[in-house]
């Protein structure tokens, strides 16, 4: 009966394979996650062997021992005389356990050291600040003119190290991008650091992993790893201000943006809107998702998000904005220009 219950262990590979590969610790796409995955395989291997051994010993014991009932006289010989065979076996088992534990501890320490030794030359520096419930990212650069800010969706170059400084503006959040590395807490009043590198191109999903309040479940982010030239092109695009070349309706949309609550919280570089309470929207139209990884970025969802955010992400700090049909259409047009 116990063997049947052990079947789930064997379906590990199957179930994990069913899970999406883009937010998955078992599908490492970068060197740090790779090293952790190696340690994982070793540890699970040893632990599985130990588990099987304990179960086998137990099952053997159960099958070999005699049977009894309440009236069977107890065997108290062991109270007077030692049991050398049992002692030897228990000591052997303990010795083997200690030895295996030491192997694991050494492997742990070795992995920790390797994780701290990722080469850092030609790194991209990103300062990520967590908010309730979105991610602000500032790409730093020694040339001040090249610094730019975005939100919720990052691009990084494949093969180059990325050094992320992690901060929080309110409560504790955690940055977790399982395909590329383990997680790191973002603690108000402190600055922490995570160093990772993507070695395979792709778009990976991360999620906040420290309970941070009402919409902790809806605080995801996307990281797209791409070849360096494509990354640089993306970064250049991010540095550009919003275009001033607008059609009539797009201008009307910008007017709506400036006159309604949008301007109170959001920045659009070059437009005059530069509040920092919400995500930077200068290039919002280039993003795949809205509301921190929660909604697909299309016209319909954007309309819903602007007018009824509480329905989509209850508790969000984004206020519902009442707009007439004309105002909304114009605003959507304008937002569509923010590529």
């Amino acid at each position, binding site marked *: 009966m116990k063997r049947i*219950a052990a079947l789930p262990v064997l379906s590990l590979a199957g*179930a*994990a394979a069913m*899970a*999406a590969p883009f*937010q*998955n*610790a*078992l599908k490492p796409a970068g060197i740090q*996650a790779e090293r952790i995955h190696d*340690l*994982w395989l070793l*540890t699970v291997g040893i*632990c599985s062997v130990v588990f099987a051994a*304990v*179960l086998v*010993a*137990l099952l053997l*014991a*159960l099958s070999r*021992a*005699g*049977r*009894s*009932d*309440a*009236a*069977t006289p*107890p065997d*108290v010989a*062991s109270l007077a005389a030692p*049991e050398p065979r*049992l002692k030897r*076996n*228990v000591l052997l*088992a*303990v010795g083997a356990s*200690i030895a295996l*534990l030491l192997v694991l*501890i050494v*492997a*742990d320490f070795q992995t*920790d050291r390797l*994780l*701290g030794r990722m080469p850092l030359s030609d790194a991209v520096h990103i300062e990520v600040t967590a908010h309730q419930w979105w991610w602000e990212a500032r790409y730093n650069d020694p040339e001040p003119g090249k610094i730019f800010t975005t939100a919720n969706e990052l691009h990084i170059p494949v093969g180059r190290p990325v050094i992320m400084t992690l901060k929080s503006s309110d*409560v*504790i959040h955690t940055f977790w991008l399982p395909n590329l590395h383990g*997680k*790191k807490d973002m*603690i*108000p009043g*402190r*600055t922490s650091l995570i160093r990772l590198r993507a070695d395979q191109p792709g778009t990976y999903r991360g*999620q906040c*992993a420290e*309970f*941070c*309040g009402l919409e902790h*479940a809806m605080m995801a982010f996307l990281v797209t790893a791409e070849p360096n030239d494509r990354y640089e092109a993306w970064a250049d695009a991010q540095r550009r201000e919003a275009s001033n070349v607008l059609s009539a309706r797009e201008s009307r949309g910008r007017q709506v943006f400036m006159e309604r609550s949008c301007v109170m919280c959001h920045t659009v570089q070059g437009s005059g809107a530069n509040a920092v309470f919400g995500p930077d929207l200068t290039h919002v139209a280039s993003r795949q998702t809205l509301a921190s990884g929660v909604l697909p970025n299309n016209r319909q969802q954007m309309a819903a998000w602007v007018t009824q955010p509480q329905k989509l992400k209850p*508790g969000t700090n984004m206020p519902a904005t009442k707009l007439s049909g004309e105002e909304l259409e114009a605003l959507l047009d304008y937002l569509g220009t923010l590529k």
Partner: protein
Amino acid sequence: MTTITTPTHTGQRDSARQLEQTWRDPPGLYGWFAAINHKTIAVRFMLTTFGFFVAGGVLALIMRLQLARPENTLVGPDFYNQLFTMHGTTMMFLFAVPVMQAVGSYLVPLMLGARSLAFPRMNAFAYWIFLFGGLMLYVAFLLDIGPDAGWFAYVPLSGPDYSPGKRVDFWAQLVTFTELSALLEAVILITTIFKMRAPGMTLNRMPLYVWTMLVTSFMVLFAMPSVMLASTALITDRLVGTHFYNPAEGGDALLWQHLFWFFGHPEVYLIFIPPLGFMSSIIATFSRRPIYGYPAMVLAVIATAFLAFGLWVHHMYATNIPELGKSFFTASSAMIAIPTAIQIFCWIATLWTGKLNFRTPLLFALGFFFILTLGGLTGIILASVALDLQVHDTYFVVAHLHYVLIGGAVFPLFGAFYYWFPKFTGRLLGETLGKWNFWLFFIGFNVSFFPMHLLGLAGMPRRVWTYPAGMGWDQMNLAATVGGMMIGASVLLFIINVLRSRRHGVPAGPNPWGAGTLEWGTDSPPPAGNFVAPPVCGGRYPLWEPDGVPAHVTGLADDRREILVTTLMDAVPDLRPVMPSPNIWPFLSAVAVTILFVGSIFTPWAVVWGAVPIAIGMTLWFWPRSRETRKNAASEVHP
């Protein structure tokens, strides 16, 4: 094996009747509030903790229904956050530790051959405090002002800026109630175990279960103050503007984590160590032999207790504390596996060389080997900083913690209920229902929690009220929900078994299992004074000694609550004090303390004016009664 010396002549029968009169609780409604017999209080305590267990389970089932499908809207984020906060808080503070103390407060005096616990009125007070704290929390929850910041209430989320209102204050004060209750119980148990053992029960002959209760109680004394301090500082931050956790004014968010986890890690061992004692009791009886390796077993429990205080930072690997510090905690977190391994190997050795009786208690004990071992091994995985950084705060940890707590504590606890129910009630629980109970629980548990390991690795974080479709998490979540339902069904079977067996169960007699420890040497249920003639202890398994119990204690009065106090190491008879009689003041003092605690959620001045009724209550509790004093003084013998 021994036979019981039942009263056979008029003198003994009169003595038994007198003893019953002396030790039983007062009758009527007044008696219900003034009761201090340790068995009465313990049964109430066990029933109350079990009630909280069921409540916590229902909360979990609602969570599982919400998570059964992606993007589900059965409950919203606000209620869901309250659900998991209440589930964790209930299970950790209102069930897991108190139930262990409750069972101990019933069994320990009996196993020691004693008539009572030490400080029986304080024992009653501790129960009332516990009950009132739990009621306060649930009233708050049902009024929609229940806590919602997690059972661990990390700051700054739980601080005044991000958790306005009183929700978190109810949580913090619940901690105060339950920790006070647990601390008092620990003092009671330590005193009882050290000073009230049967003559001849040297420390070397104490049942392994009593060792676990002793060690656990010491751990409580050192661990609980940490969470009391942490939660008090949180209350003052929220109520009167202190800055313990406010980084803007020199406070630190990690101070909370250090204080909380310095308690929180030993806490899980408070939950785990008494069940190790259940395992030893059950395995010995159903293998018909003493547990192999008594000294190793005792040292292993003591080692576990010490090591448990050196692990707490493994809950904080993802923070930015220095890496070298974290490595130390990897080593200690891995090393604590060794004493547990020693215990597991000694039990297997006992089973191997025993003659097995596969009754329900033993089945639950065997369930431990599968579930706890798996949980312990995922614990080794979590001990590694690198691995933990992937699976921390994901469903992998949810899986781990349930494997170790349910496998390591709840399964042995159910085994203990099946084992000792006949002693508590005089009737056996049904065997057939028991086996169904066990298998449904075992299978349901694995169906529910095993997939969670995979969910965590596949990217699902903890404490999320919903998850998107397309992540590949759907099937595993559904399985987890189905398994949860099976667990619920198995608990229902248990309740049915209890209700049926109370009336129609097979009558048990004093020793239905043929066990060897002293609690089985008296009637089922025991008389009010536990033993008509308190036993002298002749060995580790007194009832299995070839000549049984070598002697009984005589010379203790029947007409007052006279008990025997023995010396610490060798249990040589030393004193013959009189235990206090029941009165209403423990109950009333608990009410007064409750008023102060609840009042201080709303105003700091409650600490001042609330102290007055407490002072009155406790003074009247302590103040001796003239008649009783005269009686005692008349038969006093000076040292």
